[in-house]
């Protein structure tokens, strides 16, 4: 099994219901790292500590990110966090390949799963830098017809 990058199905439903306020000043959005052996995907509905990484200086649940603000260009609405995600002087010895975004204000409801080449970190920093926030590369993009 493996992790699969996806916008979570439940998040898409909850968008219509107004559950998530991901804009600056809105809900607390968190980012957690998961082992390469985990199985996060579009059907993930809520944060779980199962198969989350563990190690020196890593706190279960991950880090609170800097919210971006949803905006649009033409028919594409897009959103990217306002800063990189950083874990400082961690040791994460078991291979991990996924960051999971979830809404800790709204009962830890899932947002999205993002994968990358499997990594380990030893006594050093792990940083995830964000893509350029535009309609072509933003972290989350929804394009209308």
């Amino acid at each position, binding site marked *: 099994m493996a992790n699969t*990058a*996806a*916008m979570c199905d439940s998040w*898409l439903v909850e968008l219509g219901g107004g559950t998530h306020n991901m804009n600056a000043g809105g809900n607390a959005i968190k980012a957690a790292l998961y082992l390469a052996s985990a199985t996060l995907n579009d059907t993930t509905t809520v944060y779980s500590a199962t198969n989350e990484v563990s190690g020196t200086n890593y706190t279960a649940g991950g880090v609170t990110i800097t919210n971006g603000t949803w905006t649009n260009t033409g028919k594409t609405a897009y959103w*990217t966090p306002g800063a990189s995600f950083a874990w400082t*002087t961690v*040791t994460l010895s078991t291979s991990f390949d996924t960051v999971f975004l979830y809404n800790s204000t709204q009962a830890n409801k899932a947002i*999205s799963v*993002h994968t*990358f*080449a499997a*990594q*380990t*970190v*030893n*006594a*050093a*920093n*792990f*940083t*995830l*830098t*964000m*893509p350029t926030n535009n309609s*072509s*590369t*933003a*972290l*989350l*993009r*929804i*394009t*209308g*017809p």
Partner: protein
Amino acid sequence: MDLVYTTKGLIERSRLEMHEEFEDAPDHCVHAIVYTLNGEIVKRGVEVHIKQGLELNAQVGKVG
């Protein structure tokens, strides 16, 4: 003395070997800085740069 924090505590930089690793994928790239002591990895820092996020193409139903 220039000391580096490692899995084995503070070690003088001159005793360590350092190399960099790069990986470029379509949607992200990885830059790692690795320190070894006698062939053993004692420090590995990683930056993953997400080049492109996720996109959903929405549809609108037709009436009539």
